């Protein structure tokens, strides 16, 4: 199977990879990078019409779209991590850089990379796996049906850890016909190694993006964990023990259950989608030492902790360039537009998802920042009125914080959270903004590093090269 078919297209890591690699090629991201710009008007019109379909049909369409891009169960053992890594590095232009990033997916970090003109290599990819006949609220049964395929995958790929993830809250429609296999590299794949060696010169910096978020799991086998739910609107306790919000949600969706029957948790593990698996560190240290690179580790407790840092970095950068810096672009999940962020002179604030905690993080940032004249909001629609979803009314309150213009961008407020058109309209509407500014030259890495190292939201650690370039076998500390 082609790697591009194995990996989910509608996922954070691949969405971010597309957005950043297109940016480094000098392009924006129409149709979230999944189709030609010329198809955008048609896609927007068709998906807008689809938004008017009855709810049941739309929910089935969501489920079918997930199923259609998933890998058949029996083919999972044939997936090879080396090919996936080559597919990732193939996205980027061949160019020297004085900094590169590797590790956790993070929307704010993507804007950091865009500002610097630097690439990022994801540690984690999502492989959606087809399986039938499991009720979304029965995770034990999901694991029972897919454990064997999981074992086949990790046996064939000793460099991977499988973080199987089951989120019956937010992924309810998608998991009807598939299971989420998130794989993390614990050894650096050859393609990443070669790519980094071709990109970074001696003295350059390799930044490890280290999201420390952990989540309850059940160990399903060697290098195979099963994660109970996922960050978003519900808490780990609600996934584990249920609660009034969970019971109400399950009742609304006509489920025979009132809580989920996850297998007993026996520990915590780096969070499947965002968390960094530190098993990769020794390889990165060794590679940095061998090539005479500095190794920097950017650690943070939760994905959204990077967002205010990068937002402020952009704001300061605009002000240094003599621009107003009074526009905010609030982005959600994989709806990211690094190119238009810079062309519209917007400060990017990335949110993990469309939930109350994400909205609270955005309003918290607005509370502490100088007021914005304009606020634009991109909202990802996942099709489910899930626990902790922030409503359109609540988002409106946030938009009212703008001095002049507080608007949804590409959101069909009547269809949300079952808004297919957002994927086509977010870019389309953003690209219509009339007040644009020139694309800046890349930011200097020293400037950015100094800024990042001073911020409390991040822990910044650096390891200077201990071996002269070209000397092998001297792992640094």
């Amino acid at each position, binding site marked *: 199977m082609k790697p591009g078919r194995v990996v989910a297209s509608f996922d954070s890591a691949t969405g971010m990879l597309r957005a950043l690699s297109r940016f480094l090629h000098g392009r924006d991201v129409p149709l979230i990078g999944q189709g030609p710009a010329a198809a955008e008007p048609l896609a927007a019109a068709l998906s807008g019409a689809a938004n008017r379909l009855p709810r049941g049909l739309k929910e089935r369409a969501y489920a079918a779209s997930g199923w259609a891009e998933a890998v058949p169960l029996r083919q999972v053992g044939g997936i090879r991590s080396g090919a996936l890594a080559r597919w990732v590095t193939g996205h980027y232009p061949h160019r020297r850089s004085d900094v590169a990033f590797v590790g956790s997916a993070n929307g704010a970090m993507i804007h950091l990379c865009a500002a610097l003109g630097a690439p990022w290599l994801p540690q984690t990819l999502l492989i959606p796996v087809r399986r039938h006949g499991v009720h979304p609220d029965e995770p034990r049964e999901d694991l029972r049906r897919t454990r064997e395929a999981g074992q086949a995958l990790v046996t064939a790929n000793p460099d991977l850890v499988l973080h199987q993830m089951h989120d019956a809250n937010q992924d309810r429609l998608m998991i009807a016909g598939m299971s989420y296999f998130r794989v993390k590299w614990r050894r650096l794949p050859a393609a990443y190694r070669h790519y980094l060696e071709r990109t970074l010169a001696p003295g350059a910096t390799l930044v490890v993006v280290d999201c420390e978020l952990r989540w309850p799991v059940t160990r399903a086998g060697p290098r195979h964990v099963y994660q109970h739910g996922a960050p978003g609107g519900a808490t780990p306790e609600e996934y584990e023990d249920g609660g009034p919000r969970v019971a109400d949600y399950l009742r609304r969706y006509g489920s025979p259950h009132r809580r989920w029957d996850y297998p007993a948790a026996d520990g915590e593990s780096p969070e499947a989608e965002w968390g960094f698996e530190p098993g990769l560190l020794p390889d990165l240290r060794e590679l940095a030492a061998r090539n005479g690179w500095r190794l920097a580790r950017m650690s943070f407790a939760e994905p959204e902790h990077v967002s205010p840092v990068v937002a402020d970095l952009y704001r300061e950068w605009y002000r240094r360039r003599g621009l107003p810096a009074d526009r905010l672009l609030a982005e959600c999940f994989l709806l990211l537009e690094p190119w238009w962020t810079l062309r519209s002179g917007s400060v990017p604030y990335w949110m993990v998802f469309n939930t109350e905690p994400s909205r609270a993080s955005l309003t918290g940032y607005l509370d502490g920042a100088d007021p914005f004249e*304009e606020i634009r909001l991109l909202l990802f629609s996942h099709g489910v009125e899930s626990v902790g979803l922030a409503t359109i009314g609540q988002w409106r309150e946030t938009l009212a914080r703008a001095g*002049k213009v507080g*608007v*949804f961008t590409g959101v069909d407020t*009547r269809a949300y959270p079952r808004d297919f058109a957002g994927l086509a309209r977010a870019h389309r*509407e953003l690209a*219509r903004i009339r007040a644009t500014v020139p694309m800046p030259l890349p930011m200097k890495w020293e400037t950015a590093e100094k800024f990042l190292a001073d911020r409390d939201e991040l822990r910044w650690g650096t390891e200077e090269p201990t071996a002269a370039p070209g000397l092998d076998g001297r792992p640094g500390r």
Partner: protein
Amino acid sequence: MSLQRQDHVVDELTVAGHRRRGPGPPVVCVHGAGVSSRELLPFAEVLGERHDAWAIDLPGFGASGKPDRPLILPALADVVAAWVEEAGLERPCLLGVSFGCQVVVDVAVRHPEVAAALVLAGPTVDPRGRSPWRLAGQWLRNAPGESPRMMPLNVADYRDAGLRTVLAAFGESIRDRIEDKLPLVTVPALVIRGSRDRMVPQAWAEEVTRLLPYGRLAVMDGLPHMTPYRDPRRVAGTVAGFLSEVAA
């Protein structure tokens, strides 16, 4: 109490007005090109519950007197400014709809002492659509979203005004460069756009707000160009909210 007809004479021309005298400060509604206060009466009726609401006919339109030849935009603005004084209103809010926005912006920049605030509902004309053909195309695309009950009112308005006056008003709306005047508006201004307005693109509504020194944009979900006719209560609520903020 509902709407009452009150006419005034300005420069030897009768200016027809409809008023509902609510407790709040005065708001004067100015209609779009070729039409009259007819389309704004239901809105003035609702707004009059809270404000001293007026809807007037510009000279040449509706029940107002007919000048010898159609008035150009600055002349229409001068009439509105003189009418405010004649009616004895103390710095009202001027609310324009469509072409009416161009009139009230002209009043605000050439007679800065007249208005205390502006409301621009569906401000025309987007400089990127400034041609008769484009305007006609936008008008046609917008029409299906409007209330079907508005059509007979439009027809009556066009009949009252006559073809020459209607065309002259559209001509004035195309010639006027509102974007040059917006930065000179010194009072708070609320811009209203229906999310399904095909005559006022979102990017233009944002640009209008951006150009106004004290502008603020309200997007009304699901409404077409003529927001006050399509949903008088929602628009009146938004306007009243804006005016209480301005007063505070």
